[in-house]
């Protein structure tokens, strides 16, 4: 049973019984039977296949394409090039808001990164299109590629992340560092990483006059629709985008990418539906990546371990033609109290595709450096690294001085440490071996991620038969929106989950905001919650104003919605079924609308973050340097959990991403050509199942009365942070080697690097 109060009592105090249940996912049956249809699974009549030809140089011009050879290949229908493409209504290089990224849509013959689309071949079969693209045999006028930090001029970007200042200073860092008893300075490097969802970007586009039908994975349907509308000069209402399932996103499906637009252009060009699917190697260029970083941290502490200064400087890279600056230093804003604190960013421009948000953008990159540096400082103070973190526990947000809306980090440390057995940890490194002689090390890292909200809308309907409907253009990239948001929806309507139809994943539905920033459940959930309350309110008005109703005159006492009935709050013997209220009013249905967004008053008053603590055990073969993470225990507090089962999966996934960040994934870029030389899933190494340790995610309860009425923070990204640093710190504890270039390699760990 579920209930919602219609009085002024805040919802989070009386939350219903659908939320909080560890339900299995509602889309599970579709997914285990192959019936869930992803974008590339669509095959409308008359479908043609499009394949991108991508640049093999990083900088220069395309001089020629062998169009004749491609066109002569049996089955090839057209080759789309800068000279032969449908007109666009907007310049793909125009940028009218910070969430708009410049796209490569064959606007000219310039090449600005390796992997940039330079032509699209459209054919009757995928095979013919693929071969047609190969036959184009482009010739280039090549210019030297700017590949590494040393190849370009360093500058201070106007902003990092989404509109954050490049530098923020609290206190006098230089003075505090000078006065500190103990100081460390260390530089950490992280590589370019590529999102690599297992589902590559794919689109099936079909035009019908000025109307456009699109199947494509999108983490932000409304923004994608607006982008298409602008580029093609058609009203947004003419466009329907369906994205019921994403085969992973991690940020690279947040903004509509160039290749997706090329699919729409190809369909326009040939006048038939077109399917365009990226090959895996094409995922390393035009669809974003996590930028590389070189981070220098300078910390100063008193002998007892109290921090006096924390200075976090990041050098990162964007493309030559657009701006996204990985806000890595901002990871130091929230965790450790320090009288002096500085976060600063500088950048270079390289001949790469534009970097983008990738699961915990900034936070993941910055966290591994910060948590390593904190560990180094703890060691310099001869302190246990957990004790050091507690010594510097931030009671208010260090960068702003604001109180936290809630912060159960102490309990995360305590529960995680207890479960892990942290107290048995020897202080000195290199002191533990297992029965087989492997080096053993234990490390800890603190996890944090902001509790964000975007703007979203939803519609809730109560139907004549008493069942409910929720409409919300939410996106499920695997996190479980189909289940968690429906749970919130059922609570909002005072119905059981089975009685509520939940529609999502289409641009025809109310804009639910982007599925990113770990903000989707809060944003869309609040919209759904409010829509439900609105619908119930309107239903209640019908009943309480009708003298034939048992609820007539409930007035200020109010009613409660529960299990498909409205009850008088002050007399629960008086109630009425939804269906009866609607029937008497002669209504087929009654609907409500709601929106979700952060409360600006609360935002001004409180710092809002989820927190966690991750404890890692690594085992290392001392001769070979091969590492296995043998145990990982994370304890996380992220407000109220709508579905603990889904949440735990997000934590597991994030923790494994932490393993990957510390030990595995790295784009190998040729220093001469600027090309990614491991653009495949054999050599761009993500963890395999055998890399995954014994994993444990502890869900620490946390009530947050300020973050939103549902008390929800985000859980999708936080677990990468903390985990990667904990592993790096465990490596040090096992070996005594402080490795600062990630991912850590065998030769570094074995101490045989040349």
């Amino acid at each position, binding site marked *: 049973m579920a209930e919602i109060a219609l009085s002024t009592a805040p919802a989070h105090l009386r939350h219903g019984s659908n939320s909080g249940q560890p339900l299995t996912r509602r889309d599970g049956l579709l997914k285990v039977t192959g019936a869930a249809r992803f974008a590339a699974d669509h095959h409308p009549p008359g479908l043609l296949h499009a394949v991108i030809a991508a640049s093999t140089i990083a900088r220069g011009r395309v001089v020629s394409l062998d169009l004749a050879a491609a066109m002569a290949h049996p089955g090839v229908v057209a080759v789309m090039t800068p000279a032969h493409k449908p007109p666009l209504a907007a310049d793909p290089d125009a940028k009218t808001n910070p969430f708009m990224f410049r796209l490569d849509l064959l606007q000219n013959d310039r090449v600005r990164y390796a992997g940039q689309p330079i032509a699209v071949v459209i054919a009757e079969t995928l095979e013919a299109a693929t071969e047609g693209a190969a036959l184009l045999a482009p010739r280039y006028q090549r210019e030297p590629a700017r590949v590494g930090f040393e190849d370009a001029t360093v500058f201070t970007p106007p902003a990092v992340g989404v509109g954050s200042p490049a530098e923020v200073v609290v206190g006098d860092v230089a003075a505090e560092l000078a006065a500190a008893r103990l100081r460390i300075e260390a530089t950490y490097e992280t590589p370019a990483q590529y999102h690599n969802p297992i589902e590559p970007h794919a689109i099936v586009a079909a035009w019908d006059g000025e109307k456009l039908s699109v199947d494509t994975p999108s983490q932000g349907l409304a923004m994608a629709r607006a982008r298409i509308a602008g580029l093609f000069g058609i009203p947004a209402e003419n466009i329907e985008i369906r994205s019921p399932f994403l085969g992973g996103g991690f940020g690279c499906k947040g903004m509509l990418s160039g290749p997706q637009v090329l699919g729409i252009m190809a369909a326009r060009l040939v006048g038939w539906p077109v399917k365009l699917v990226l090959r*895996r190697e094409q995922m390393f260029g035009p669809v974003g990546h996590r930028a590389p970083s070189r981070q220098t941290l300078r910390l100063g502490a008193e002998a007892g371990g109290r921090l006096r200064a924390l200075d976090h400087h990041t050098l990162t890279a964007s493309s030559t033609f657009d701006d996204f600056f990985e806000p890595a230093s901002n990871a130091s804003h929230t965790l450790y109290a320090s009288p002096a604190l500085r976060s600063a960013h500088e950048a270079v421009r390289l001949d790469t595709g534009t970097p983008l948000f990738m699961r915990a953008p900034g936070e993941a990159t910055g966290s591994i450096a910060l948590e390593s540096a904190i560990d180094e400082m703890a060691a310099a103070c001869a302190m246990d690294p957990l004790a050091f973190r507690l010594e510097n526990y931030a009671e208010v947000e260090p960068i702003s001085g604001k109180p936290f809306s809630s912060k159960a980090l102490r309990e995360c440390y305590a529960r995680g440490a207890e479960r892990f057995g942290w107290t048995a940890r020897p202080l000195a490194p290199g002191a533990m071996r297992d029965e087989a002689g492997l080096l053993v090390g234990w490390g800890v890292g603190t996890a944090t991620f902001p509790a964000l909200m975007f703007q979203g809308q939803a519609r809730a309907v109560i139907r004549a038969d008493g069942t409910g409907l929720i409409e919300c253009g939410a996106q499920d990239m695997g996190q479980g929106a189909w289940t968690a948001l429906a749970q919130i929806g059922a609570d909002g309507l005072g119905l059981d989950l089975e009685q509520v139809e939940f529609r999502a994943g289409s641009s025809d539905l109310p804009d639910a905001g982007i599925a990113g920033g770990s903000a989707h459940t809060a944003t869309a959930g609040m919209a759904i919650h409010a829509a439900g309350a609105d619908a119930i309110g309107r239903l209640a008005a019908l009943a309480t104003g009708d003298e034939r109703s048992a609820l007539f005159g409930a007035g200020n006492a109010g009613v409660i919605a529960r299990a498909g009935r409205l009850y008088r709050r002050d007399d629960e013997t008086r109630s009425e079924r939804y269906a009866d209220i609607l029937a008497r009013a002669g209504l087929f249905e009654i609907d409500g609308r709601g929106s979700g967004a952060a409360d600006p008053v609360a935002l001004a008053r409180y710092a809002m973050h989820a927190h966690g603590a991750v404890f890692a055990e690594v085992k290392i073969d001392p001769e070979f340097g091969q590492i296995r993470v043998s145990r990982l225990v994370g304890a996380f507090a992220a407000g109220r959990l709508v579905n603990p089962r889904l949440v735990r999966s997000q934590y597991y996934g994030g923790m494994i991403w932490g393993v990957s960040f510390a030990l595995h994934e790295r784009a190998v870029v040729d220093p001469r050509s600027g090309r990614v030389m491991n653009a495949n899933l054999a050599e761009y190494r993500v963890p395999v199942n055998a890399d995954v340790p014994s994993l444990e995610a502890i869900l620490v309860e946390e009530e947050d009365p300020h973050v939103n009425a549902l008390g929800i923070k985000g859980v999708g990204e936080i677990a990468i942070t903390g985990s990667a640093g904990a592993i790096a710190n465990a490596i040090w504890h096992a070996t005594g080697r402080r490795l600062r270039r990630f991912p850590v390699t065998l030769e570094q760990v074995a101490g045989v690097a040349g």
Partner: protein
Amino acid sequence: MPQVSLTVNGKRHTVEVETRTLLVELLREKLGLTGTHVGCDTSQCGACVVHVDGTSVKSCTFLAVQADGASVTTIEGLAAADGTLHPMQAAFREHHALQCGFCTPGMVMSAIDLVNSHKERMSEAEIRHGLEGNLCRCTGYHNIVKAVAAAQEVMHGRAQAAE
């Protein structure tokens, strides 16, 4: 164009294909069996795993003409006609061994072959190694192992199905 005759999920098909047509394209584009996914094109991710004559192979690295005369099983062919799930499907669903679901069909097909070829109870380590050819980026590895561990008991008659 060569003709290929093959049995897919118990149904016989004779299809004209190009020599270069991959089995996965035949299944997806010609037979409409889109539960088999393509994730990497290069036999690395495992999203395209199907069974050919009872063993798991990566259908993105298998020519359709090579499957001539073969019996192919895809994710769509696992459940019984009445909808009763294969024990592995049921276990994946029950143990929440999936997130985005894109790797799931290949993972399920690999897991079934793994269990079929190990009559003795597999340890967690053996399951993890046995699934090395299937990448899950989300990553649901932990629950996948739980699901396979549970399904092997059902498949070898040591326990009841999850549902």
